[in-house]
């Protein structure tokens, strides 16, 4: 902690002569002057937060009570949009697609990331390079990689089915097959996020003191027991963070679907965010699209709260 202190010295010296007169003056007016500066510092970001985050949320609430096709005047319809939502099979289908997508992605991605982190949390040759290579997909522009994977999954010319041909297997039509399209898109999502998730687990694993494992080993715990009774419980905070953030992301999936399937074939990959986009910017049904956004908001909020309760209930260990 001594380094910052020495660093502060040079800028202080030039104004040292002002000490005698300045101090009494700021004692009384200091609070107000501090306020003024603080407000000035906050102002731009507060404008951003209010105008582009809070106001939009209020607008979404208000807009959900209107029927508005942009060109006409907005028409107040009360709760009509909500009634329509309740009876809209396409919307519930889209919600179901989203839930399936999340269920296909998150468990696989989390388990894979944890396994990779366990494999890389040891001294092996090239561990740095492996780590870097696994994180590479996270940097990729989702829309670009969506297009690349679209080609990989091509039924005839795609790399996947060509490779399967070599071993004598005829691959399905993937993205044009309603059964395989969603798993394929989910797989791309797993590809993109596993390495990134692994980094968090690695950090979590490195925060577990060796003594805990030593103690468990002394008590005769097998490696499997050590994993379930030492590693996993101590990873609880990491697991909480990873689970909350990756679920929030997966519920809003858009780019990958836009690039790979456009929601098809036959709505089989039309996740909720895609439906919102279609409703607003293809059908110009803005009031209804706002109602759909609100539903997504509530769902994400509930899922997050459920995780707060789930992870909060489990024992956490304070190692500090």
């Amino acid at each position, binding site marked *: 902690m001594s380094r910052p202190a020495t660093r502060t010295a040079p800028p202080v010296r030039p104004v040292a002569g002002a000490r005698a007169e300045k101090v009494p003056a700021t004692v009384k007016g200091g609070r107000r002057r501090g306020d003024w500066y603080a407000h000035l510092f906050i102002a731009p*970001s507060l404008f951003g937060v209010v105008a582009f985050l809070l106001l939009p949320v209020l607008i979404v609430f208000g807009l959900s009570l209107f029927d508005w096709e942009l060109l006409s005047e907005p028409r107040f319809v009360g709760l009509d949009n909500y009634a329509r939502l309740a009876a809209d099979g396409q919307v519930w289908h889209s919600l179901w697609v989203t839930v399936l997508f999340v269920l296909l992605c998150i468990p696989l991605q989390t388990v894979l990331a944890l396994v990779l982190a366990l494999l890389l949390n040891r001294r092996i040759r090239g561990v740095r390079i492996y780590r870097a290579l696994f994180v590479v997909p996270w940097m990729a522009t989702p829309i670009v990689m969506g297009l690349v994977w679209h080609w990989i999954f091509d039924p005839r010319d795609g790399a996947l089915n060509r490779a399967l041909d070599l071993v004598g297997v005829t691959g399905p039509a993937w993205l044009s097959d309603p059964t395989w399209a969603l798993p394929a898109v989910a797989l791309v999502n797993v590809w993109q996020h596993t390495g990134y998730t692994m980094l968090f687990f690695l950090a979590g694993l490195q925060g577990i003191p060796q003594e805990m494992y030593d103690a468990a080993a002394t008590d005769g715990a097998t490696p499997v027991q050590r994993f379930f009774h030492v590693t996993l419980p101590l990873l609880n905070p990491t697991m909480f963070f990873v689970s909350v953030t990756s679920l929030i992301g997966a519920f809003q999936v858009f780019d990958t679907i836009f690039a790979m399937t456009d929601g098809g074939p036959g709505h089989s990959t039309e996740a909720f965010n895609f439906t919102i986009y279609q409703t607003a910017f293809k059908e110009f049904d803005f009031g209804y699209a706002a109602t759909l956004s609100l539903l997504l908001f509530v769902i994400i909020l509930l899922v997050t709260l459920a995780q707060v309760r789930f992870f909060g209930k489990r024992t956490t260990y304070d190692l500090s």
Partner: protein
Amino acid sequence: MKRTLLHAVLLAGAFVSVFPYLLVVLTAFKSQGQLNSTEPWLPGVPPTGANLARILEGDFPRALLNTVLMTAVLTAGQLVFTTFAAYAFARLRFRGREPLFWLYLATMMVPGAVTVIPLFLIMRELGLVNTWWGLLVPFLFGTPYGIFLMRQFFRGLPAGLEEAARIDGAGPLTILLKIMLPLCRPALGTLAIITVISSWNSFLWPLIITSGEDTKVITVAMATLKGGVGVDYNLLMAGGLIALVPMVAIFIFFQRHIVRSVVLTGLK
């Protein structure tokens, strides 16, 4: 034996991670004929620069320039406004600090998917659809996430740091710029990298708010390349190569920093 198996597993994983990138590079340098006559994972011999030349003839260079501009402006805005706000929240005392910070935290919970429609309507009301302002302004003033990150960092600095300077009569602005800023270069680096990546890769907002050449960014340009039945994969991969190279370059140069910063942002 066990070691060999471990390396085999890791190599397989690394291969899957990198394979799509490899495909982009191989295909970008293949001719149409080579694309049809070789397996996707084999290189075309001899390699051709024709696809790159072709993509650089169209509106793609303009889209690339637009993306660079957008990324630069958004990153600059994020760094400047976030630093000021985070410093105030972390180290200054002022009326309304706690409730305001809670407000910021609450807005972190608002998913992007929810704000897109109202943001579009706000921009439409202001006549900013299909303009640079419309593209940039909603994300110019720093994100609550960035402010949270920087605030945590400022709070971690030793408490007495400003005292000496304050006693000597330095104002908050001097203290921030001369004393605090040099200390938070690692945190600013982290924030910059995250902002560069997310701006460069952003798609939904540019797709909605822009339509003309002047403001078209590279992700939107890529999406339009896909249109139609017969996709020109040579051209598409050449475009993909151009879009991906800057991200890969950043990754190679800042690899260690990125790995460290990802961990830092998540677990504070």
